[in-house]
Structures are given as structure tokens and as C-alpha cells.
């Protein structure tokens, strides 16, 4: 009995400070990328939450692309499973220079004031012995019958064992519209 109570008490103590805000980046308009730098290694996992709109004049969902530690090489792998309102579609790439979170942003010809949204989890980001796995849930909806908007499950891999110390979020097509914003959170282990 007492050991069970101990576990509960320990869990509750951990929860109270287990999820913390690290930093927020917000576009004033026209930025091709937004960067979180000097990320401390004191958490177990990271989560990014944000909304985005792209300045490219297309009517449809677009992606948000991610790179780590300034690595622009072909060291990224990615999968996605997306619903466009009519079909479920899967895609994948290897040897890319980023992980794309399809549907996390919206083109500038889309319904005014509509933004894409993303929640991105980066697991064991501070490890120095493992490649880095990323999971994303993103969506873009503009109240239109176009099949160019999506709800998407994303997975990605960065083929590098270095601890992640910076994250660059690249606008999927052109640049970020004003009001696009991403917040970085740390989750303790």
C-alpha cells in the first residue's frame, strides 16, 4: 500500500513542472524561416505548437519544413499519411534536406484569416547516441471543397546523433505571413 502511494506522490510531483515553455518565435511577415536556438539539453523531449500561413499565392495547404542544428544536407527522411477530404494518401521521401510537416500552413490565396496548425514532438532530442525521430500532427482547413487542404500525420528522422541545439522552421513555399507563430516547450523525463 505505502509503495503505491509513493509512486502516486512521485508522479504528481513530476507533473507539476514537467512541461515548460522554452521560447516563442513569431513572424512579422516575410520571414523565410524562424529559428529556435540555444535549446537547453535539460529536457527529455520537445514539443512545438504553432499556426502558420504562407505568402505564396496559392489556394491550399502547404508545409512547414524543419531542420536541426543548421544541417542543410540530405540527412532527413520523412513519411506522411494525409486525408484531403476525399481520400487517404501516403507519401515518403529519403535523402531530403528537411522534414516537411505537410498541411501545417496555408497559402495566401486561401480564405482570409485561416491558418494551418501543427503539433510536433521531438523525442529524446538531447541524446548523443541516437538518430532523432520526430512526430507531427498538422492540419489546414479553409472551408472549401478543394482537395488541396489536409489533415496529416507526419513522421521524420534526422540521421544524426548530435544533440539538437537549434531548430529552424522554414516556410513551406515562400515566406511566413504575419501572425505565424510557433512555441517550443520542454518535457522533462
Amino acid at each position, binding site marked *: 500500500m505505502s509503495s503505491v502511494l509513493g509512486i502516486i506522490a512521485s508522479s504528481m510531483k513530476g507533473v507539476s513542472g514537467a512541461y515548460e515553455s522554452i521560447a516563442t518565435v513569431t513572424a512579422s511577415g516575410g520571414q523565410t524561416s524562424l529559428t529556435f536556438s540555444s535549446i537547453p539539453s535539460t529536457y527529455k523531449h520537445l514539443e512545438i505548437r504553432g499556426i502558420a500561413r504562407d505568402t505564396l499565392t496559392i489556394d491550399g495547404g502547404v508545409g512547414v519544413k524543419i531542420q536541426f542544428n543548421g544541417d542543410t544536407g540530405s540527412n532527413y527522411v520523412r513519411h506522411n499519411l494525409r486525408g484531403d477530404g476525399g481520400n487517404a494518401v501516403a507519401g515518403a521521401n529519403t535523402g531530403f534536406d528537411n522534414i516537411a510537416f505537410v498541411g501545417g500552413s496555408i497559402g495566401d490565396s486561401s480564405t482570409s*484569416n485561416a491558418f494551418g496548425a501543427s*503539433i510536433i514532438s521531438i523525442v529524446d532530442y538531447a541524446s548523443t547516441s541516437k538518430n532523432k525521430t520526430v512526430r507531427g500532427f498538422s492540419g489546414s482547413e479553409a472551408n472549401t471543397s478543394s482537395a488541396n487542404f489536409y489533415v496529416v500525420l507526419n513522421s521524420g528522422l534526422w540521421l544524426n546523433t548530435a544533440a539538437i541545439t537549434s531548430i529552424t522552421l522554414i516556410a513551406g513555399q515562400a515566406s511566413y505571413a504575419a501572425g505565424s507563430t510557433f*512555441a517550443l516547450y520542454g518535457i522533462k523525463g
Partner: protein
Amino acid sequence: MPTTYEPIATQTLGSAALSITLSSIPSTYTDVKLVFTGTTSSAEYLGMQFNSDTGANYANRSLYGNGSSAGSFQALNTNYIYLSGIPSTSTTIPFLLEIDLLSYAGSKFKTALIRLSLDKNGSGGVERLVGLWSSTSAINSIKLLIGSNGSATFSTGSTATLYGIKNA
């Protein structure tokens, strides 16, 4: 650094109800997350409205798997955001809904990311949805409703908890 993830309110049904509303939501967070688990009086699909807006100001698209196939649907100019499209709810087996409302207090249209886990021991499925409320108003109340049947109810013991997430 500030602790930033905290419960705002919990509502547990003491008796069956046609809907569940969480109101007076403060605008002091960046995002809010609603976690709901429960059953319904018959097999139904679910919806969500904000700020008592019953107009055709909502839209959706989904991605689902039902155990044998995957698919997608969309719903435009609807009176609520669909929270479940294909897998209908159970009268006995609880389903889990996780609803993230990003920048819920901002001046843009509101986008919801929705996760539904609904395994019914031989049927049911998993579904992810994106929803849009075409309003620039800050969200100050969330209503969960049963969309397909005016008399169906959420069962006693169904629980909704709203969390606030605040950035730096």
C-alpha cells in the same frame, strides 16, 4: 522557466446530458486542450461549437481507419465541427477525444486538431480531424454535442477536462 500546462476546469456528468459546455474560458493561455472520455446513449457522431455560435460557420476534414480501410471526408459550412465522422460512439465502451485549439484567443480563424480513439472490441476505429471555426473571436466557451440524434445523451460519468498551455 514558467510551468505552463495546467488544468482549467473539469466537468463530470452526474446525470445524462444532451451536451457538455465549458464556459468562461480565460484568454490568458496560448492554446487550450480538451480531453474527453465517455459513452453515449446510442451509437452517434459528435460535434463541437464555440461561443454559442450555431451558424454554418464550421468546416472539417478527417483521416480515419476502421480496421479494414483508411479514408477521408470533409464537411463544409456546417453548424459544428465534427469530432467523429466514421467511427460512431459506443453505449458501453468509452471513447477518448483530445482536442487542441491553437491560438484560441487570437484574432485569426480558429483551427482545431482533433484525435479520436474509439476501439469497440471488434469494431470502431481511429480518426484524426482538422476543424475550422470561421470567426476571429476569442473562444470563451466550448460545447460538446451529439450531432446525429436530438435525443441522444452523453452518459453519466462522462468527463471533460480543459487544460491551458501558455508560451514564454
